């Protein structure tokens, strides 16, 4: 168990900056996820902590020791690899005990520890098997046993579940969480899967292009993303973004306007601002009663429906002309499209005219140029008079919404 501190860690390859001035403090016993798209530098960050690559600049501290120039074996870390990396020429027992044998432990001590580790990952009775005789999940558990048997100060996991099938992945996710509870060791976990990061970690470190974007508990990243990248990366399907321009009364976009008190923002009118709203914060106008503060009604045409069972994703086209079918990613970034999630019982059809409202308390505003978040939720900055107007319009739409049903 130990704290891990990264101080101004930078890793440069010839002309590419893989990790750019990373500063992270990881608490003792914390489960932290490094998450980001492929090639964002999260694995390189992990490798610098493990000691497999040396940072170009900066220092890494594990516990009280500056380990920047120590070889991997002296850092008190252990690692689980994406490609599992069991030694094919050794059986399970030899694989698990490899690190202990190198450190010249007693035979009895090794046996005791291997057995204990095997018990934790439920591999009893398989110690004399060859790695090739095991299934993917079992191999991964051997790799985890190999990592825990040395009782390291820090556990590094580099996409350990990436090569497993979907069902096994969910199962192993739970097992890893249980393992963390049991061992109470600092775990640093690299993944590109934001769902894994959300479900498992105490804190998420979102990384993009080698730079740390935000490090915060999962729900903070979800509800108060620090910038547009985090907002778009965390959450599935992705947040809707609509680009617009700030006016004296609010935000003007190509297809709808939002009214709010712009005095609270530190921006001049005319600045470019991007509005972000998650699919679940868009409601059909008919069901908008429950909202404390809904936006003005937006008219749209439904495009494609994606019934998921527990909800339906509806692609809304804000233009009259039909747009070509888009993927989730494209839809979230195209400003004439909105993705809405509705109740599975909703009777909603394709190519239907609908009116929707946004939950004003869940609207995020980002500065378009820098991508930095301005505010999360705009209901507080609304004046009372405008609120009244919104209420009235909302009521009007409930009627029309009722008709369409």
């Amino acid at each position, binding site marked *: 168990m130990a704290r891990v501190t990264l101080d101004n860690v930078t890793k440069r390859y010839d002309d590419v900056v893989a990790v750019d001035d990373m500063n992270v403090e990881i608490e003792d016993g914390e489960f932290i996820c490094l998450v980001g798209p492929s090639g964002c530098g999260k694995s390189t960050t992990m490798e610098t902590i493990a*000691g*497999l690559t040396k940072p170009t600049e900066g220092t890494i501290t594990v516990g009280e020791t500056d380990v920047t120039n120590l070889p*991997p074996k002296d850092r008190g*870390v*252990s*690692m689980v690899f994406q490609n*599992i990396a069991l030694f094919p*020429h050794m059986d399970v027992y030899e694989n698990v005990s*490899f690190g202990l044998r*190198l450190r010249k432990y007693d035979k009895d001590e090794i046996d005791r520890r291997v057995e204990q580790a095997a018990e934790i990952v439920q591999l009893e009775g398989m110690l004399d098997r060859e790695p090739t005789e095991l299934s993917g999940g079992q191999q991964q558990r051997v790799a985890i046993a190999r990592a825990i048997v040395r009782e390291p100060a820090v556990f590094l996991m580099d996409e350990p579940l990436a090569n497993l099938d979907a069902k096994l992945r969910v199962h192993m996710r739970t097992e890893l969480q249980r393992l963390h509870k049991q061992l109470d060791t600092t775990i640093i976990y690299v993944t590109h899967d934001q769902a894994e990061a959300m479900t498992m970690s105490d804190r998420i470190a979102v990384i993009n292009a080698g730079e740390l974007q935000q490090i915060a508990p999962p729900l903070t990243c979800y509800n108060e993303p620090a910038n547009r990248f985090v907002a778009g990366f965390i959450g599935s399907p992705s947040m809707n973004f609509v680009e617009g321009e700030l006016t004296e009364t609010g935000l003007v976009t190509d297809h709808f306007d939002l009214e709010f008190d712009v005095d609270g923002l530190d921006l001049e009118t005319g600045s470019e601002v991007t509005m972000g709203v998650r699919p679940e914060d868009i409601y059909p106008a008919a069901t908008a009663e429950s909202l404390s503060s809904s936006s003005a009604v937006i008219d749209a045409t439904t495009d494609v429906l994606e019934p998921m069972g527990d909800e339906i994703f509806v692609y809304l086209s804000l233009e009259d002309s039909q747009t070509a079918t888009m993927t989730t990613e494209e839809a979230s970034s195209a400003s004439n499209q909105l993705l809405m999630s509705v109740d599975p019982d909703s009777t909603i059809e394709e190519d239907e005219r609908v009116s929707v409202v946004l939950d004003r308390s869940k609207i995020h505003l980002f500065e378009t140029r820098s991508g930095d978040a301005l505010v999360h939720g705009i209901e507080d900055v609304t004046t009372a008079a405008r609120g009244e107007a919104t209420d009235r319009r909302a009521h009007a739409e409930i009627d029309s919404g009722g008709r369409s049903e």
Partner: protein
Amino acid sequence: MATANEPPTQSSDDENKGPLERWTHGVLTDPAKRDRLYRALFYVACGFFLVTTLFPFYWLLVLALTPNTQILAGDWEVTVPLVGAEVPFPTPQGFNVYAFVEVFQQVPFHLYVFNSFVLASVTTVIVIALASLAGYVFGRLEFPGRGLMMLAVLAVSYFPPAAFLIPLFDAFLGNAIVVPFLGIELFAPPRLVNTPGSMIMPFSALFLPLAIFILTTFYGQIPDGLEDAARVEGTTRLGALFRVIMPLSAPGVATAAVLTFIAVYNEYFFSSIMALQNEPNQWSPLVGGILSYQTQYTTDFNLMAAASIVGVLPMLILVVVAQEKIVSGLTDGALKE
């Protein structure tokens, strides 16, 4: 529906064809016939290779068992009756097994075998150790000039060994190294002729490039994850090389080792010169031993043949053992990537 019409038309076609044409047509259309042809061709090719590789050994055996006087006299009964005809085929004239004993009585042949065996073993160990380090560097590390250095190493292996012979012999005699034209003595190397050092050093240098080339390819194929895992688990880079990368490259290591061993075991050119006389205590090799059955006036062909067979035996055993290693290495080394 075509089947009803086909047999008569085919048979009428067949009647017009010759037997060879019928057979070719059958091979082209009938899979069973084709398989039979392929099998026959396989046996023919197999037999050809077996005969060409094994006949020299048989010929050695014939010579070893035939008394030398008869070899020198010539005029052999070289035909054997086979399926009613006289087929030319050499057979031993007599059964002189005593030749295999005489080999050791006339010359301390076992010492020559021992010399070659020691030279080959030591050279192999040195070559594998050095080539492993070089193979790791060339196969697994990225650094500027890697391709150029690899090319340089390979270029050395294309040099004719004779080009090194005179300077090396001069140096191994213990003569002082002198700067050309100026006559300044730099240092006097130890006198290495008649010692294993004078042979092992040039052998190692000559056979290193090939071993480096083989091991570079094999070490380069081991997934990075395995090496990283070993290093995180507690080995150094060198430890990872010897504990993980080398065992997983067993087929490559065995290939490089066997090639080196055989090449040195058969070597005569360098060692005949570095050993000043053809004496076993001057580290003269196996081939030198075989040649020592030839004196100024006599040549014991039967003893030379018997000695050749005796000299091949250790090699045969080694290759059979290594072969097993190679095959097991190939089947066990299935890597999960």
